């Protein structure tokens, strides 16, 4: 009966979670595809992610002088690095799938809003 259900509801805790003030009760599963992290130390600059991205948002940026200096043995051939523009990313996770060195990962960190467009460029 609806009326019983309603009166029960009156004394139940509301289901609303007042995000972002509280996050208890929210579901952040492992597989959630959100903020990217790129480990530039192990990225070899192979461009595979940029080629596979359905939204064309990964740009391969040439390394600066300093960065060229700082290359380790593992990535000594690297000349470009991926930079992802999250404002147009569709969070499909294809880039993660194709990356041969596992240096590009999607985390389940969903808090992305920002007033600064620069902050939404991952990889710099």
């Amino acid at each position, binding site marked *: 009966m609806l*009326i019983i259900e309603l009166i029960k509801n009156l004394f139940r805790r509301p289901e609303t979670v007042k995000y972002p003030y509280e996050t208890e009760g929210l579901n952040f599963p492992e597989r959630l595809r959100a903020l990217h992290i790129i480990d530039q130390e192990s990225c070899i600059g192979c461009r595979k992610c940029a080629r596979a991205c359905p939204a064309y948002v990964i740009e391969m940026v040439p390394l600066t002088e300093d960065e060229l200096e700082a290359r380790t043995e593992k990535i000594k051939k690297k000349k470009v690095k991926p930079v992802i523009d999250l404002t147009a990313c569709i969070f499909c996770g294809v880039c993660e799938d194709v990356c041969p060195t596992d240096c590009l990962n999607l985390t389940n960190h969903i808090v992305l809003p920002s007033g600064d467009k620069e902050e939404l460029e991952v990889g710099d």
Partner: protein
Amino acid sequence: MISDIALFLFQSIVFPGVFFIVTLAFGSNWMYRKIYARLQRRVGPDSAGKYGFMQGFADFLKTASKEEIVPRSANQVIFRVLPIIAPVPIIVGIFFIPMMGLRGMISSPGDIYAIVFILTIVTAIEIVLGWSSGSKYSLIGASRSGMQLVSFGIPLIFSMLYPIIRAGSFNLMDIVLAQDGTNFGFLPRWNVLGLGVIAFVLFLISALAELEKPPFDTPEAETEIAGGWTLEYSGRSYAYILLMEDLKMVFVISIGVVLFLGGPLGPTFGISGWGLALLYFVYFSLKYFMVLIILTIISSGLARLKIRQIVFGSWSFLTPISIVFIILVMVLGGV
């Protein structure tokens, strides 16, 4: 003499006058929304003030500070002026209600006449408001509002007849006093406890229709006519319309409390003077919020009816029932 005038001014403007009534209106708005939300497992208003209690004020101020747009097709004078004076009749009506004592701020031998008149005037104002905005949605909303008035006028007035017959008077103080005392030593002699419960149910249904709350929110039906007669109003005018709706809630529910639940009556414990007034007010508010909660639960459990169904239901069930009921009461001599 001077102190009398000062007291009157204080009463009419501060307490229990306009300011207090407006606070009560916003409080009821908050209460309605909070309970409505909790019934749906939501939180409801919770940001403005403690537990969102200031939500009514916040809405009013925010809306009032917005730009006011007057459509070209609207009747320029009525559209601008009427919303501002729309809350006035209801405030006057609330002055009749005995909240703090056995006598309202205004009292006359014909209180009920005035109250019925004001209830009708309010709907008439809604119709004119809708008509003057010159939009088709508003026009449909206004015509629906008028149809509801025609349908629920008779059950509403007939349900109010029961307390009148019992008290033998049109004065609210007499009606309240007629409910004083107890039956069998414990049961208060309120009108709702006894045969009057039928009248009370009729009154609740008509009150929902008068307040345009679900399932009778047809004149404002958001998903059908996008807000009905309120559609074109914005800015300050809309703020006053919101206020008017909240005040209407206070007014209609207070009438129910006074007519059926013994108004401010309750055990007095031998207190007198200001203490008694306060006690009366506490009793009144308790009953008031009880009726508000009942109305909220009813309105949250039902879907909106079509205007045809409302008119049909009213004329084929409510009106005959109310007429038969009143005839019965008259024959039995006001039980």
